[in-house]
């Protein structure tokens, strides 16, 4: 997983320390800590993981192991409009792959990446519970159903103003 290096500010560290403290620095709460921290920073860069490891008194390798195991966690910042394409069974059989390919082509990025202007990021997820609308695409909080590859351009244009 690629990562960008940042310098943490003192108040960034305080934010992480506070989150860890709210879970009593309990190593078993790692996943909850990561959730809250990602909510705060938008992503989990290496340095943030180091501070978490130090607080919970666990190895950095272990934190990294958990971050890479769950697709929800990300080490690169999400775009202003995060795009999630459902590749669950129903969406997949109804052509989610083709929609995904079209997205990649339009945005010129791969899954897990963010466009250079920071506007869009692309990720896949497994089932949003709206199989009747398959294939489903979510952009931010907005849900698009029965998306065909030829709709992609139009959908993206909605966010481009």
């Amino acid at each position, binding site marked *: 997983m690629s990562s960008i290096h940042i*310098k*943490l500010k003192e108040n960034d560290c305080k934010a992480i320390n506070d989150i860890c403290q709210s879970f009593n620095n309990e190593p078993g709460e790692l996943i909850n800590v990561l959730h809250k921290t990602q909510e705060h920073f938008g992503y989990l860069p290496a340095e943030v993981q180091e501070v978490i490891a130090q607080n919970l008194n666990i190895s950095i390798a*272990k934190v990294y192991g958990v971050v*890479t*195991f769950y697709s929800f966690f990300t080490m690169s910042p999400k775009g202003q409009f995060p795009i999630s394409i459902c590749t669950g069974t129903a969406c997949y059989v109804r052509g989610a792959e083709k929609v995904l390919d079209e997205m990649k082509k339009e945005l010129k990025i791969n899954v897990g990446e963010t466009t250079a202007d920071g506007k869009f990021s692309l990720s896949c997820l497994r089932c949003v519970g709206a199989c009747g609308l398959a294939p489903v695409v979510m952009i931010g909080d907005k849900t698009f159903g029965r998306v065909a590859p030829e709709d992609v351009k139009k959908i993206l244009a909605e966010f481009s103003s």
Partner: protein
Amino acid sequence: MSLINIKINGKDVQVEAGKTILQAAKQIGIEIPTLCYMNLHDLNIEHNPGGCRICVVEVAGRRNLAPACVTKVTEGMEVKTHTMRVLNARKTVMELILSDHPFECLTCAKNGTCDLQKLAQDLGVREIHYQGEQTTYKEDNSPSIIRDMDKCIMCRRCETMCNDVQTCGVLNGINRGFYSVVATAFEQDIIKSPCTFCGQCVAVCPTGALTERDYTNRVIRALADPEKTVIVQTAPAVRVALGEEFGMEPGTIVTGKMVSALRKIGFDKVYDTDFTADLTIMEEGTELLGRLTKFLNGDKDVKLPLLTSCCPAWVNFLEYQFPEMKDIPSTAKSPQQMFGAVAKTYIAEKLGVSRENLVVVSIMPCLAKKYEAQREEFSVDGNPDVDFALSTRELAHLIKQSIGDIKDLEDEDFDKLMGQSTGAAVIFGNTGGVIEAACRTAYEIYTKKKLEKVEFEQLRGLEGVRSAVVDFDGLKLNLGIAHGLGNARKLLEQIKSGEANFHAIEIMACPGGCIGGGGQPLHHGDSSIIKARAAAIYREDEGKAIRKSHENPEIITLYEEFLGQPMSEKAHELLHTEYFDKKKIIYIEK
């Protein structure tokens, strides 16, 4: 303890509640094949992630096959360990494991000692019906360890050693599914991690995923160079393990044959690291007595306990994990580095060779010694004191490719000047040995009396953390011993909190001490081998005419001719070092 009745292959067995099918079967002599499973019971290490599924067995009334290493026995259970269904399943599991494994067996460093290879052979796998995608990870080269993760089968034994036993926290499983692999934090090269290079991960890796950096060819090149004088030193633990690589019983002592082999291979001089182990005792023992005297005279700033500093993985551990304590260890260099420093000055002069043309090779039971040899502070103008450190396994390869076998060789003696050693030096290979050797010398210097019984039985054993009181004629010394870095951590935490009150502590990074080192012949999880090596070390000690370091005639000569006194200016320059704060820095902007 309540007993449970079960049937294995139609045979009635009574086993303790809480045991697994694997343990129950072993009890009646039925071996179930395993791969990811590892049990070093004397060291209290059991690793059973139930991940590989090689150990599956049939349990009556159960729909699917049960992994024997994690399935607990229940009353009335009926187990069959080698039905057709079981054998087929094991073969299929093996084929699937092999479906993304590189087929480089003939040129792989683990060829012949690979658990995966042996198991495939045992299971009779002759064909692989599945062809899968293969991973292509970048090979990670460090001075000590090479990680070739394409060969990783995710048994995760290395993680248990790194995290639970050694508490280094370098390795962890990352990603999921096909992409899951054992890696360092952020998949950095291992040299950038807090890895101590103890090599315990390498020692338990069942495949060629983790191996040592092999310097054999560089040594061969040096031996072939007419300009170079190549000398070699051999660590205490090598002589009680090398024989295993040639089919001898664990615990066979092959000192004389090893010397003979090294001479036949072409080393110009064959010296002994045991000699510098004696030298270490002279320096470290003097340092200990110096600190003790200051302490007894009421000096409050004196650094106690004195920690031994022979083990390079332990030194790395301290520098990464407890840098605030870097002033406590003895400043004495390890025997390997003392040898290098003396060889490239004293011996170079004696042999009439320049430093540049003198190549010092060491044979070590250890992988961290390779890293230690490359530390910048152990070189002069870019020329290292020790040029190449080979493991016991590499020496075996070097012997096999050059002269074949050692079995029929006549015993020979080490060369003069740095070849004589005492029983005190030999026991450096065992946990508790360094501190015992130090006691033998320090006792006589402190009390000015002859030590009648040289064995300090209270310092011996395989318990992970031990403590003992040694009586120096009224002065009661509190001594601590830890082997395995997890145990070392426990002792260090006690010192930090002020809970423990020791005068001196011996720490060795590997379970059992150097005899269980990461560079030794693979013991494949059989701890009786480690015990046999330990017993051999004590036998070798008993067989020595001189058993106290300060009585070694060559040591006495070295001080007379070259060094002056222990802790002299010259000794300081050549035989002592300092430690550094290597805590990994977190990127925080102030």
